């Protein structure tokens, strides 16, 4: 019994970014001291606050298993999925929770995603073919090796951590950004797709891949091991080779 009581008395402090656009012109930080549990993630702590302390705290979450991409926030200044960020990695120090950087804030910890949703459509993330085969012809053959070429870029959960980490996106909001470029490259590398040139026309601009200075923060923070920096580097190489081919062998680019 004693041991249990001691455990129950342990607490942790969360400093949470609050912004209610109807009531406040400036954001503030609100401090909550809540029970500390060894196996809680940051999202559990936020849910504790919402359920038991302050129902007005606003944030997004759903799957709590790192795959729906809803619950990204800045945790002590670093973009994280709060469903897989454990309190024990910070305890006994306080934890500061803020909305993902580089995005407008809708309210409290919920950001506005409009910009990414527009950029996602912009890179044409679907299979483009000159001739669609009928379903009766069966599946397009794709060997495990061909699958491996794009598979990791297909793992993007659209959680926006890479945009929050990207210093270029912070300075140049026009930049298409890591996740959208990785998804474009995911289709470019898919053996079933023939839309590479169409997408390269979109990517081979300053706002596309060339704004990126290969800081690599996107790959560092990615919770799905997508490696957007690698995608951007590959696309840059393909774009440069395409340019060389057009300049040096214009007849070879038909």
């Amino acid at each position, binding site marked *: 019994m004693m041991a249990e009581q001691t455990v129950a008395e342990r607490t942790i402090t969360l400093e949470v970014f609050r912004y209610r656009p109807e009531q406040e012109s400036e954001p503030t930080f609100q401090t909550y001291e809540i029970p500390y549990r060894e196996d809680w993630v940051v999202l559990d702590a936020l849910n504790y606050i919402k359920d038991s302390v302050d*129902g007005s705290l*606003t944030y*997004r979450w759903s799957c709590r*298993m790192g*795959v*729906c*991409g809803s619950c990204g926030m800045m945790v002590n200044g670093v973009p994280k999925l709060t469903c897989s960020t454990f309190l024990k990695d910070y305890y006994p120090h306080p934890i500061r929770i803020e909305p993902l950087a580089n995005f407008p804030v809708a309210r409290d910890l919920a950001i506005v995603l409009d910009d990414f949703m527009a950029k996602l459509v912009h890179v044409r993330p679907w299979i483009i073919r000159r001739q669609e085969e009928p379903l009766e012809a069966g599946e397009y053959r794709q060997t495990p090796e061909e699958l491996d070429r794009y598979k990791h870029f297909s793992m993007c*959960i659209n959680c926006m951590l890479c945009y929050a980490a990207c210093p270029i996106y912070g300075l140049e909001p026009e930049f298409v950004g890591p996740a959208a470029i990785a998804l474009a490259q995911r289709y470019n590398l898919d053996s079933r797709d023939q839309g590479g040139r169409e997408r390269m026309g979109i990517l081979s601009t300053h706002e596309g891949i060339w704004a990126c200075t290969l800081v690599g923060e996107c790959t560092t923070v990615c919770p799905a091991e997508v490696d957007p920096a690698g995608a951007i580097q590959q696309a840059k190489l393909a774009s440069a080779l395409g340019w060389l081919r057009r300049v040096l062998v214009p007849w070879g680019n038909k």
Partner: protein
Amino acid sequence: MVDVLRHDLLIIGGGAAGLRAATAAAQLHPRLNIAIVSKVYPMRSHTVSAEGGAGGVIKSNDSLDEHIQDTISGSDWLADQDAVELFVREAPAELLQLEHWGCPWSREPDGSVAVRPFGGMQKERTWFAADKTGFHLLHTLFQTSLQFSSIRRYDEWFATRLVVENGRCQGVVAIELRTGQIRLISAGAVILATGGAGRIFPFTTNGAICTGDGMALAYRAGVPLKDMEFVQYHPTGLPGTGILITEAARGEGGILVNKDGYRYLQDYGLGPPDPWPRLRAMELGPRDKLSQCFVYEMQKGRTIQGPYGDIVYLDVRHLGEKKINEKIPFVRELARKYVGIDPVHEPIPVRPVVHYMMGGVHTDAQGATPLPGLYAAGEAACVSINGANRLGSNSLSECLVFGARAGRAAAAFAREHPAADLAALEAQSRDEERRITTTVLRAEGTERVSTLRQEMQLAMESGCGIFRDEASLQETCNRLARARGRFMRLWLDDRSRVYNTELVAALELDFMLDAAEAVAYSALARTESRGSHQRTDHPQRDDARFLKHTLAYRTGGAPRVDYLDVAITRWPPAQRVYGG
């Protein structure tokens, strides 16, 4: 005067069923004006959490008849056999369509699609994308949908009521979360593709958004909920969180052992244990039976006590690191992250967890409900192909097959029935706004959303779990009625309009109380045991009285329960035989 939001076809929900409905309608009728209303961005939908795969006959050693038989015996003969037949016939083309749209299905060395075994199957027929199949399927569908300019999206709009005028459904009232505005969205036809209701229970694989919204919307509009008493417990959830460990772990050869390291399933008619792996036996038995076996083991004192209830072990160590990384990498990641063990070196603690609602909005095989203009598909609907226990890997395929069917049927209806009576619809919208502001956002109250939600969940777990009896079910019904009463004294901390997630949580709780009530009363009325519905006071299946679908209708008090014959064509009811 604000603009009227008008569409031909309105789809509520942006998961697999909703997106497939939208793309099917858009492909068939390029000029149809289609809209998807979703309370989350579509890529956040719970389809994303499906892991193991999607069933569909493609290999030459398999046959449609075997998939049909597996589905029907899995359902304990409560599935409609005509619906199962067309489902099985259409599933392969739907999975191929996803392949053509870019889904990264795992492959054989020759480049053909690979399949894996799943529980309750005579043949390997589960298509998979490693063990994130739902994630890949959802993102493929969503990204594909972006090329259709005829599909407009209302992302983060929460539908709170169907508008019914002149005897047909003509749209919804919805809250735009970012502004808090309550708006009418009118349409010629509406499809509910809102997913399941696992969150009526405390321990579930389901994400926070699975709150039975579409079920309650239909129920309130007078449409019956069918077979709601059938709740699937998945045998392998992580203790504490309820995170799903996919059946594919057993499909690839994983075993379940009790505290003595003994493969206990052999004691319950699923053995012999060897040779292993073996189809339709032991760990590849159906989910309902495996979850029931866990309870028997617990009663015998042969499970392991843990901080979040009793557990058994799922052991995949013998598969080796290479195969684990290749076939079930997500299982490894989840186990390491959430229970701190590496399945390559240690067995995974698991316990049964609420996973799937076999029941849902009563529809026919076109997705049509009894209310003209209203359709439903996916987990929100009950056609029924799942009967008393869904065959693993049928749910993603069901979303595709019946999503597409509902999309086409609703599009045809919408083309003939444009939304009319706009003034009357607007009046309903104002009524709904009044209901929300005067009841849910009332000026005084004492009850917290979380308190009532927890009370509902505990009531469901104690009375509507894997085993049930009359007394426990009656007690659950009583507790739910009291929770419904307390809901009338709700208090919200959040009084803002912009992005009021507490208001959404309150309205979701309102929906869940309806869904929970339908589950509990339907279970009370079915005095037999079948599939996932096990009554300790009525342990036998009773085909004479209950080879029937339950239909629960909403009333002021306890729901009215009625029955509907099951469609039996070529497969007369028989005993379910596994193992051997």
